[in-house]
């Protein structure tokens, strides 16, 4: 009686775990084999006045797994929020940021998103200050 029940639990657990892990495995393999899965770049920056800039940001995603709540953070400010980013989509937006923010952006940024609605992922790049 117990042996089939135990086997059933093992199989059910394995299937659930595989289902849960598949977006993470696919995303990790795609990222490792292709560094350009997510490309974030500043397309153009124009002066509005002395203190403000109009910046066009492009975010291209070439992965299979859908990303949710994509955020680009510079300093303490969230400058870009995309609720859903799917394969092959390019997201272009123009934002107004201050000269100070642009200076902070050159020293680093944070990219935060949720892989397949299951795994929170944060990637931060920060410039090392040389003494």
């Amino acid at each position: 009686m117990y042996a089939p029940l135990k086997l059933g639990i093992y199989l059910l657990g394995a299937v659930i775990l595989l289902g849960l892990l598949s977006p993470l495995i696919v995303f990790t393999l795609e990222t490792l084999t292709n560094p350009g899965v997510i490309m974030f770049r500043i397309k153009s920056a124009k002066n509005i006045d002395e203190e403000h800039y109009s910046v066009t940001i492009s975010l291209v995603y070439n992965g299979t797994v859908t990303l949710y709540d994509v955020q680009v953070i510079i300093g303490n400010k969230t400058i870009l929020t995309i609720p859903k980013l799917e394969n092959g989509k390019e997201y272009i937006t123009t934002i107004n940021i201050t000269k100070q923010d642009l200076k902070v952006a050159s020293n680093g940024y944070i990219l935060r998103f949720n892989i397949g609605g299951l795994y929170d992922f944060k990637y931060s790049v920060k410039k090392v200050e040389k003494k």
Partner: protein
Amino acid sequence: MTGSLGIEEKRRDIIYGVLYKITISLLFLLIFIIVFDILIPALLPPEYRSVFEERINIMHLISYLSVFLSLNIVDYVLGKHPVAIPIRLLSKFLLLLIVLDALSYGKLHGSIVYNDYVISIYFDISKPLYVLIIITLVLGFLDAFKKISGEEV
């Protein structure tokens, strides 16, 4: 004469059983080291290896495994005695704790220095770990019920 032979046989069975438990635990340790210390870092790009290598503390793992092995041996020697049930559950939870500890309880993070930049990565993989906890709990209690009902596990 038959009685003493029976006791001798039982003693031999216990010794073989204990040796079997020790072998299984050592195999588990070996598989764990191969997977977490050799296989996964080998699959990662060289710049990310250091992030993972800091994760596994072999001495930590050996101390966990010694307790796990002791609990397993006590459980085996006690046989169908009711005291063996909580000990078996405890050993199952300890095994789960080893896996959870190795995976930083689902919150993986690390940083590397690349050119003039520090790149930090944070991953939250707690959801599959919840499933693992539930499966371990269900299997642990199933084993306990099996033992209570008198069936050999």
